[in-house]
């Protein structure tokens, strides 16, 4: 028995090795085939993303006289305004993302609960601003929010306030304008993910005695998290590179990173000055995305295992 099984085992092993070799070469052939299919896409990514970013990084290492140096990076520490601008950029991005979640989540929830017809009509109102230029929307907010704008005029006429509220040309103005522009970027992915939540899960929860609030908290909300996470990431990253709205609504007091890049490009006679700003923003953004992925990704998988 033991002898037989040993010899059989030997034979199986031999067969197995032969098989494995064949399987391996098969897999290799398949991988090569896939690679060949992928290669146009990979080439495109390489040509339009990797090469320019590498070039940007390369440029950032040269000073005005064309010598290799870290002068473009040293500037961040020598001039107080760079750190300040960087902090402002992230502060604006955090606040705007927070405001978008605050307004966007209930909106997306409402949309997802409406009958299909009503939901599509309401969705049009969410998408409509997409079709209007950012510049036009920003100027419209200026008309509404400034010292002699609609809101202040109404409030003063109604006797609610004596002095106009400072709503434009400051941080508040930038946040209001940007929240409006960013809202659809959060609502759309969130709405899409809420629509895929199986109503039966909620019914089952209710059936087992959960109150509507508990059903929402324990079932609906965790299931909507992946959609929320992708919306948050899109909004946050878009905010980091935003230019038009802070430039017009900030009254020159809310300087964001993109505005600084534009300034650096015209102030310094080497591209490196602006390139270094781009590299730093890219690096910090990637690090943050990694962090998001780690935090929210783990959370999302946690939800599935709970289910």
């Amino acid at each position, binding site marked *: 028995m033991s002898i037989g099984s040993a010899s059989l085992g030997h034979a199986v092993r031999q067969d197995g090795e032969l098989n494995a070799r064949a399987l391996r070469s098969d897999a290799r052939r398949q991988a090569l085939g896939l690679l060949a299919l992928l290669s146009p896409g990979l080439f495109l990514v390489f040509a339009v993303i990797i090469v320019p970013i590498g070039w940007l990084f390369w440029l950032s290492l040269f000073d005005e006289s064309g010598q290799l140096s870290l002068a473009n990076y040293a*500037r961040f520490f020598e*001039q*107080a*305004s760079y750190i*300040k*601008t960087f902090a402002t950029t992230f502060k604006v991005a955090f606040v705007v993302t927070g405001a978008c979640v605050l307004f966007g989540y209930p909106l997306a929830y409402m949309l997802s609960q409406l009958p299909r017809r009503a939901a599509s009509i309401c969705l049009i109102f969410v998408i409509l601003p997409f079709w209007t230029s950012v510049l036009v929307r920003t100027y419209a907010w*200026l*008309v509404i929010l*400034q*010292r*002699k*704008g609609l809101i202040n005029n109404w409030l003063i006429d109604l006797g609610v306030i004596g002095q106009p509220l400072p709503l*434009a*040309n400051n941080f508040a103005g930038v946040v209001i304008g940007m929240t409006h522009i960013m809202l659809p970027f959060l609502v759309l992915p969130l709405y899409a993910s809420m629509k895929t939540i199986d109503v039966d899960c909620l019914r089952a929860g209710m059936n087992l005695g959960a109150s509507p609030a508990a059903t929402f908290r324990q079932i609906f909300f965790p299931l909507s998290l992946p959609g929320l996470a992708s919306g948050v990431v899109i909004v946050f990253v878009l905010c980091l590179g935003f230019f038009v709205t802070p*430039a*017009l609504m900030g*009254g*020159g*007091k809310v*300087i964001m990173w993109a*505005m600084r890049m534009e*300034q650096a*490009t*015209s*102030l*310094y*006679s080497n591209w490196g000055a602006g390139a270094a700003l781009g590299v730093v923003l890219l690096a910090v953004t990637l690090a943050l995305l990694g962090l998001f992925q780690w935090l929210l990704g783990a959370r999302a998988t946690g939800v599935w295992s709970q289910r």
Partner: protein
Amino acid sequence: MTKRLCIHGLAVAGLLASAAVPASAADTITIASWGGTYQEAQTKAFFDPTAKELGITIKQDTTNGLDDVRLQVTGNAVKWDITELGADECARGSKEGLFEKLDYNVIDKSGINPKLVHDDWVGISYTSVVLIYRTDVFGDKGPKTWADFWDVEKFPGRRALSGSQATETLSVAALAKGTPIDKVYPVDIDGALQSVDKVKGHIDAWWTSGAQAMQLVKDGEVDMASIWNGRAGTLRKEGAPVSFSFDQGVLTADCMVIPKGSKNKDLAMKALAKFVSPDLQANLPLYVDNGPANEKAFETGKIPQERIKDINSAPDNVKKQVLQDPEFWRDNLVEATEKFNNLIQQ
């Protein structure tokens, strides 16, 4: 019949094409300026008459400034034969070697301030930074000098200054602390920054474009501001309740250059010579508030007497203003701008 017509048509078109293509390639120059009403005025004042006189075609483009020229020259892709820049940009670009040398045998420089006549760039027009205030807030007793603008107790109200043009804001800051007009340049940068620091807390907006400055004043978002005279003039024409004068204005020149590697350098030189000639220079203030760089324009008799007092570069108005020194800013722009940013973003 129809076929023959067709062939005829083709032949004619072919002839036209063969005749037109080489001619237009040789006799076409491309000029880039700032766009908007200013470039429209330049078209009527400079480009159209020159094209007609020289029998050439002048194509137009718009520029964002020195970066665009640098990009074209260093990338060996020069599209423009002539481009307009701010005078400090000309001084910087000249140092970087981005422009062709100008031939002053072709271009007559008489009548142009020698500070604006250089080997590879020449002045073309003037803009002034002026103090504007709203008459519905102050009547005619508004702030008249930069010292008044800085005096927040005597003239309470909301204020805006340029945040993007450190050169201009530092010049008016120097005037505000009592520096006489002829002593502003070379600017005592640290002194001017201290002066900015005094008013900083009372500035409600630091504007970054001419349009923004105009909008701030027009909508009453601020009661007083520094503003470019062209924008101020437009506000006045539109009937906005504003007042401004050239007293203590900061006169800033624009210049024109031929980017290095221009394919039609000789023709561009001839066109540039026309643009700075007193005759065409005198056309400019007929269409726009930017004054001519050539003071002989005022002797041509083309500009009506009553118009002259409103032109920033008219000899009587020049006396009241500070002339920005492009070479000073060539050497000090970066340092001054970084310090200025540090200060206003604290």
